[in-house]
């Protein structure tokens, strides 16, 4: 089928109650004009845009609630503390954790993963032990483990993937052994879009006695995540990739593991009593939340979750799936385009290269038409190496994207081919 014959239907066919045009009105930045063209924002895997509800929550927090939490007896401090703990409960329900105390607020995925490496990792991984990751990890799910392994004399093992960008499950299972203390795996790959068979991977790791840390940064915006159903030991994600503010993220951890772990940073809020002789740590989750947290960020994250719930994560997922299928067909049909990452199970991401044209040049030419894509290695250099390319162009989708925007991208890519003809 030729791309020109495809009629943009703007995501309504299969998902009737999902009104993308109405959703777009909730995101003020989508009105922006770039170089005289309407903004086509397809860099959502880097960070998503924020709905008015989230922006308002930040303002509301500073205008009406700002006070330090867990510290004052005064009115505002009490309100701020209540809101903060209400947000924790909202996050708990969002990922279906068993208890709110299993939700730790961090700066983002990166900090959450480093927290696990520096606390659980440092006390449970020793010389000769192994940490297993996969070939499609983001740098933030590689480097903390490399640092840990270097410090402890442990070994980092890497489970390979096939040419479609799918994890080789049998090879992964073979790599799991008595020395494997920890498995760190991305739920959804940011460079390829691959959804990993997490439940199976976790069960296999548990069978060998390994604890599993999940990098969920690219999963929570697109899929319904249930940490209990997955039986994940740790699950990390960032607010800013799921319509929330920057600077706030989450680490979920099983209560028993969290309780046995040493604290991450020392400071206020993470203690129950301090003398110069001895300090007793606060109970979880506060033990891992030293210092004044990003309270406005937490309010914004709660608003983002409420917003997503209001629309329905299943509906968002269905809409994005439709976009991805359409984009795969339309962009994949352009002469010279080679899709990178063609796993059967994918979410949100279309990565590609075009003839001999360098992604950076493609990015500039698309930008001239108002189209924002990511070009580069996407903080996943080993993935680029696996496919023997320096970089890709990545279009990544959110609930507010339309088939019309994918048509604009296709037109933009044709323009690139003209320039380089």
């Amino acid at each position: 089928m030729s791309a020109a014959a495809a009629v943009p239907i703007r995501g309504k066919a299969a998902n009737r109650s999902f009104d993308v045009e109405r959703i777009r009105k909730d995101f003020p930045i989508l009105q922006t004009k770039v170089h005289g063209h309407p903004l086509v924002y397809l860099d959502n895997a880097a960070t998503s845009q924020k709905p008015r509800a989230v922006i308002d929550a930040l303002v509301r927090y500073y205008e009406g609630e700002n006070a330090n939490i867990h510290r004052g007896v005064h009115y505002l401090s009490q309100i701020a503390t209540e809101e903060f703990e209400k947000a924790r409960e909202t996050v708990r329900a969002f990922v279906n954790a068993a208890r709110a105390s299993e939700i730790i607020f961090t700066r983002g995925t990166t900090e959450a993963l480093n927290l696990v490496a520096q606390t659980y990792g440092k006390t449970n991984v020793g010389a000769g032990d192994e940490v297993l990751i996969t070939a499609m990890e983001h740098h933030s799910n590689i480097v903390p483990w490399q640092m840990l392994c270097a410090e402890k004399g442990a070994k980092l093992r890497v489970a390979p993937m096939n040419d479609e960008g799918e994890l080789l499950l049998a090879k992964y299972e073979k790599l799991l052994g008595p020395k494997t203390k920890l498995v760190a795996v991305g739920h959804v790959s940011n460079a390829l879009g691959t959804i990993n068979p997490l439940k199976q991977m976790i069960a296999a790791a548990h069978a060998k006695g390994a604890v599993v840390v999940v990098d969920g940064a690219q999963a929570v915006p697109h899929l319904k995540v249930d940490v209990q159903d997955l039986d994940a030991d740790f699950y990390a994600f960032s607010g800013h990739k799921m319509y929330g503010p920057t600077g706030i993220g989450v680490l979920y951890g099983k209560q028993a593991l969290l309780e046995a772990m040493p604290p991450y940073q020392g400071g206020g809020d993470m203690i129950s009593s301090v003398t110069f002789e001895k300090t007793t740590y606060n109970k979880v989750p506060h033990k891992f939340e030293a210092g004044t947290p990003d309270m406005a960020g937490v309010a914004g994250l709660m608003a983002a979750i409420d917003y997503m719930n209001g629309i329905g994560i299943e509906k968002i997922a269905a809409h994005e799936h439709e976009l991805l299928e359409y984009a795969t067909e339309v962009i994949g049909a352009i002469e010279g385009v080679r899709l990178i990452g063609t796993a059967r199970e994918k979410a949100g991401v279309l990565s590609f290269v075009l003839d001999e044209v360098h992604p950076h040049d493609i990015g500039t030419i698309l930008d001239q038409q108002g189209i924002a894509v990511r070009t580069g290695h996407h903080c996943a250099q080993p993935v680029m190496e696996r496919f023997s390319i320096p970089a890709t162009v990545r279009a990544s989708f959110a609930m507010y994207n339309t088939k019309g925007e994918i048509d604009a991208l296709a037109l933009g890519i044709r323009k690139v081919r003209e320039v380089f003809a």
Partner: protein
Amino acid sequence: MPELRDLYQEVILEHSKAPRNYKALESANYKAEGYNPLCGDRFTVYLEMDADKIREIGFQGAGCAISKASASMMTQSVKGKTKEEAEKIFHRFHDLVTGHGQGEDAELGKLAVFSGVSEFPMRVKCATLAWHTLEAALEGKQEKVSTE
């Protein structure tokens, strides 16, 4: 509004497709490697210096059209020049692509086609990567240079 054709001039596209002096020099007595971690562009510049003079120059590597064309045209413009002359051209070229130039600069010759880069600040590093690498090679530095 910046125009794409100002950036992707014919000469630039032509050089990017068929770069000149694209070879590793057997006779090189100086070389340096340049890397832009943002986009993965990577070049090696080889120099055969005769005292202070660039007798031969070659480069190899991978990068976008702008960085490749810039490397190619750089090799043409500095061949036969002294170290000091080459550095002077680089400074003028740098001024040109960052928009600090004084308009027409006869001494830049063909390199003037890169003036459009100044309208695309994100691409200045692409245009200057090979030049920074040349500078490092001239200094006799062996370590990698990075534009980040």
